[in-house]
C-alpha cells in the first residue's frame, strides 16, 4: 500500500500544483425554530430580525402575496379554529368566533392603505411615505387569540414589519397553531420564513424580556392595565390597547325596538367578551320599562330578586374587584345555573336594574350580565354614562333620534369608538362596518389600529423638483 501511495503521490506531484478547492455538499446552519416557533426568545427575535432585513427589501407585490397567502390559507380552517378557541379558552361562542375570524382575515386592509402623500409647489416636492418600524413585539389577549394574531400579522406585515407574538398562556395552543400555519402558508407562497415568530412555551417572563430586547423596535400590547403600563414604560414606541366598560345610552327619542335588538345582539355576541361590547345600559326613565320588555323579547333574562342579584355579585366578582375567570365569556345559562337562579328558555344575556354605582355596572364584567341604569333626563343620563365608562375612553354607543343629544354624547364620551344607533361590534368591523379593529389603542391614542399605525411617517424633500405647476429658472 505504501508503495502504491508513493507512486500515486509522485504522479500527483507531476500534475499542476494549481491549488483549487471544491466543497462538501452538506447542509448546515439550519435555523433553530420550526414554522416560526422557537424555544429561546433570543433565537426567535433573531430570526424575526433576519426575516425583517430580507422582507424590508421585498416588493409591495411580495407583501401582497404574503397577505394573500394568509387569507387563502386559513379559509378552510375558520370553523376548526373557532371551535378550538372555544374549547381551549372556554370563553365565547363558536358562531361569534367565526364572525370575528372572518372579520380579521377578510376585513383587515393591507398595503393598499399606505399610499404616500405629496405636496408640490415652488418648494419642489415634499413627499411622505409610511415605512416599517422593524420587528414589532405584540402581546395578545386570550379573548381574541387567533383573531389578534391574524389581524396583527396582516397589519404589521402590510407595513413591512415582522413580528414576535407573545401568546396569552390561556390560549397558547391555538395561538401556536395559528402562527405555525401562517408561516407555512407564507413560506409555501413566497419562500419567506419567520415573518411571525413565537415561543413554544409562552410566559410572563418571556414577554417582559421581549419588551426590553434591543431588536424589538415597537410594541403592540392588548391586555390589562399592568401589561400596558409595563409596555409604555419600556422606552419603546407602544401601541397599547386597554380596558373599557362601554355604556349603551338610550334616550326617550330612541327607536326602542331597534335599540333593544342592537344592544342584546351586540352584548350577547361572543358572550359579552369583547372590550367594545355593551357592558351596561343607561336609559331615560320614561322608556326604561319598554326597553327592558323589548330586551327580554330579544333573548335577555331579567333578574329582579335582590337576593339573586347579590348571589350573582358574590359569585362573579372576586375580592380584589376583578371579574372571576370562571365566568368570563361563559354562557348566560351557565352563569345562572352556577348561581342557582331559575330561568326559562335559553336566554343569551342576563339583565337587571341597578344603580349607577352598583359593582356589576362599574366593573368590566366581560360576561353576559348587562345592568340597566335609569336616569330622569338626558343630562343626567350623559353624566352617568361618562361616570360608569370609568374614564377608559374606550367605547360607547347611543340610541337616539335627537341629533343634538347624539352630537353632545359623542363629544362628551370622548371614546375611541362611538356607535350611533347600532351594535358596538360594528366598531370592530364585524358586519362589514369598516376595517377590522382588533387592537383598539385607547391609552396611547392611535384608536382602531390599521396598517398605518405600525409604520413610521417619513418625509422626503426635493427643492429642485418635482412640481408640474411650477418651474424656477
Amino acid at each position, binding site marked *: *500500500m505504501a508503495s*502504491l*501511495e508513493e*507512486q*500515486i*503521490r509522485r*504522479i*500527483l506531484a507531476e*500534475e*499542476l*500544483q*494549481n*491549488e*483549487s*478547492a*471544491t*466543497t*462538501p*455538499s*452538506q*447542509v*448546515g*446552519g*439550519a*435555523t433553530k425554530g420550526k414554522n416560526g416557533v422557537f424555544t429561546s426568545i433570543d433565537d426567535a427575535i433573531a430570526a424575526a430580525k*433576519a426575516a425583517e*432585513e*430580507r422582507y424590508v427589501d421585498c416588493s409591495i407585490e411580495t407583501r401582497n402575496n404574503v397577505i394573500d397567502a394568509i387569507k387563502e390559507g386559513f379559509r378552510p380552517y375558520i370553523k376548526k379554529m373557532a371551535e378550538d378557541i372555544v374549547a381551549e379558552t372556554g370563553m365565547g361562542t363558536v358562531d361569534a368566533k367565526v364572525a370575528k375570524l372572518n372579520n380579521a382575515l377578510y376585513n383587515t386592509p393591507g398595503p393598499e392603505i399606505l399610499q404616500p402623500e405629496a405636496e408640490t409647489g415652488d418648494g419642489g416636492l415634499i413627499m411622505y411615505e409610511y415605512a416599517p418600524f422593524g420587528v414589532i413585539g405584540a402581546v395578545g389577549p386570550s379573548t381574541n387569540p387567533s383573531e389578534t394574531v391574524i389581524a396583527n400579522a396582516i397589519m404589521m406585515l402590510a407595513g413591512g414589519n415582522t413580528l414576535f407574538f407573545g401568546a396569552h398562556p390561556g390560549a397558547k395552543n391555538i395561538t401556536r397553531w395559528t402562527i405555525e400555519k401562517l408561516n407555512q402558508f407564507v*413560506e409555501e407562497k*413566497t*419562500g*419567506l*420564513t419567520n415573518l411571525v415568530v413565537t415561543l413554544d412555551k409562552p410566559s410572563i417572563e418571556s414577554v417582559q424580556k421581549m419588551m426590553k430586547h434591543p431588536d424589538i423596535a415597537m410594541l403592540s400590547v392588548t391586555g390589562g392595565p399592568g401589561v400596558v403600563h409595563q409596555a409604555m414604560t419600556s422606552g419603546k414606541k407602544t401601541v397599547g390597547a386597554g380596558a373599557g366598560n362601554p355604556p349603551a345610552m338610550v334616550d326617550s327619542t330612541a327607536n326602542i325596538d331597534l335599540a333593544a335588538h342592537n344592544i342584546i345582539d351586540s352584548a350577547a355576541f361572543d358572550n359579552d367578551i369583547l372590550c367594545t361590547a355593551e357592558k351596561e345600559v343607561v336609559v331615560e326613565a320614561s322608556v326604561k320599562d319598554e326597553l327592558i320588555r323589548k330586551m327580554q323579547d330579544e333573548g335577555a333574562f331579567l333578574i329582579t330578586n335582590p337576593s339573586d342579584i347579590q348571589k350573582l355579585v358574590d359569585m362573579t366578582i372576586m375580592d380584589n374587584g376583578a371579574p372571576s375567570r370562571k365566568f368570563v365569556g361563559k354562557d348566560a345559562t351557565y352563569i345562572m345555573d352556577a348561581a342557582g337562579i331559575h330561568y326559562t328558555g335559553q336566554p343569551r344575556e342576563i339583565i337587571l336594574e341597578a344603580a349607577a354605582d352598583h359593582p356589576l355596572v362599574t366593573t368590566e364584567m366581560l360576561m353576559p350580565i348587562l345592568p340597566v341604569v335609569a336616569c330622569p333626563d338626558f343630562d343626567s343620563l350623559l353624566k352617568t354614562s361618562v361616570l360608569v365608562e370609568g374614564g377608559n375612553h374606550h367605547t360607547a354607543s347611543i340610541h337616539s333620534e335627537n341629533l343634538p343629544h347624539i352630537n353632545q354624547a359623542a363629544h362628551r364620551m370622548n371614546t375611541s369608538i362611538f356607535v350611533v344607533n347600532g351594535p358596538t361590534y360594528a366598531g370592530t368591523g364585524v358586519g362589514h362596518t369598516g376595517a377590522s379593529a382588533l387592537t383598539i389603542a385607547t391609552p396611547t391614542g392611535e384608536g382602531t389600529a390599521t396598517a398605518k399605525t405600525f409604520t413610521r411617517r417619513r418625509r422626503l424633500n426635493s427643492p429642485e423638483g418635482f412640481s408640474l405647476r411650477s418651474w424656477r429658472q
Partner: protein
Amino acid sequence: MEKIAIPTTIYSGDDSLSVLKIIKQATVLLVCDPFLPGTPGLKSIQTQIDNTNQTTVFSDVKPNPPLTNIMAGVKIFNQIKPQYVIAVGGGSAIDTAKAIRFFGERLNQTEIKCFIAIPTTSGTGSEVTNTAVVSDEKNASKTPIIKDHLTPDIALLDPKLVMSAPASVTAFSGLDVLTHALESLVSVDPGANVISTALSEEAIDIIVNHLVTCYKQPDNYEARKIVHEASNAAGMAFNTAGLGIAHSIAHQLGAQFHLPHGLACAMMLPIVIEFNAQDHKVRDKYVKAAVKAGIGNRNLSPRLEIKRLQNTIYKMMDQMKCPHNLRAFGVDPAEAKAKTEVVVKAARADGTFPGNPIVPTDEQLTKVYQAVIG
C-alpha cells in the same frame, strides 16, 4: 484558433441505460456513491449489464474525493484491470472514478476501453468534463487533474435517476448549473465561443423556466429530463469556455463555512453578475441571454435587464428555500468578515479565476466577497 471538442457521446431518456448492453465478456469497475448499492436506481443500471461480464462495485466515495479513497479504488483497479469503468452518482462519484482511471492507467501502462458516466444529480456536468479534483487530506491541498482523455466517452442521462434526489439537492445542483451557464457565457479563459455560448444560453433558459418545477414536482419526467440535459449542456459549455469568480469564491465558501457548492454558487452569482456587468460587452452578453430566457424584454435598459436577471435568481432561491447570504445561512458575519483575506487570496489562486471577464483588484474582490456576507 479556437478548439471546440465535445467528445462525449450522450444518450438521454428513460431508455438510455440500455446502452450498457453493448458491454459483453468484459471486466467492469463500477464506481458509485455509497448510498446507491441496493437502491432501485442502481439495480436498474446493474440489470442492463450483461452477466457475461465480471463487475466489481466500488462505493467508498466521499465528497471532495480524498486521496485515501481513490487509492483504495486504484488498488481494485490494479487487481481486476478493468476494460470498462462506469461511474454512477453525483460529481464526487464521477470525479472519483475519473481519478481511479487516471492513476490506474498510469500505473499499469494500460488504457481502458471505455468510460461511461451516469449522473444521478443534475448539476456538476462532470459527465462531460475533463477534470477530476482530488483532495490530499495529508497536505490539506486540492489538486485538479485536467486531462482531455479523462473526459467520459459516454454519458447516459436517465431522468428517472435524478427523481429520487432530495429537494435541497435538486435546488443546489440546479443552481450550480445556472452558475456554470452564466459564468461560461462570459468566460475569457479558455474563452466562450459561438458553440459554448449556444449551450450556455439554452441551459440558462431551461434552468430559469424549469428548475423550480423539478423542485416542486420531483416526479415531473419532462422537467427532470430537460433540466438533466441542461446540466449536461452547461457542463459542455464550461468545459470549453471556463468559469469565473462566482466559482472561485464559492469554492472558498465551501471550504471555510461548509456551504453546499451549488448554494454557494447561487449566492455569489447575482453579485458577480453585477460586478462583471460593469464591462458593457459582458453586460450585453448577460442581457442577450436573459432576454432569450424570457426575463424582462428587449426594450428595457441593459441596467434594468441586469436587475431583472438578478431578481430572477433571488426569486428562484426564495421559491426553493435557499438563503441569500452567509448570515441567512447561519454564518456569523463577524467571522466571515475576519476570513476576508484568506478567501480573497485563495479565490485568486483558484483554477476558475482566470476565466472571469474582469480581473478584479484585491479591493474589488474583497467587495464582491463581503457582499455575500449579508
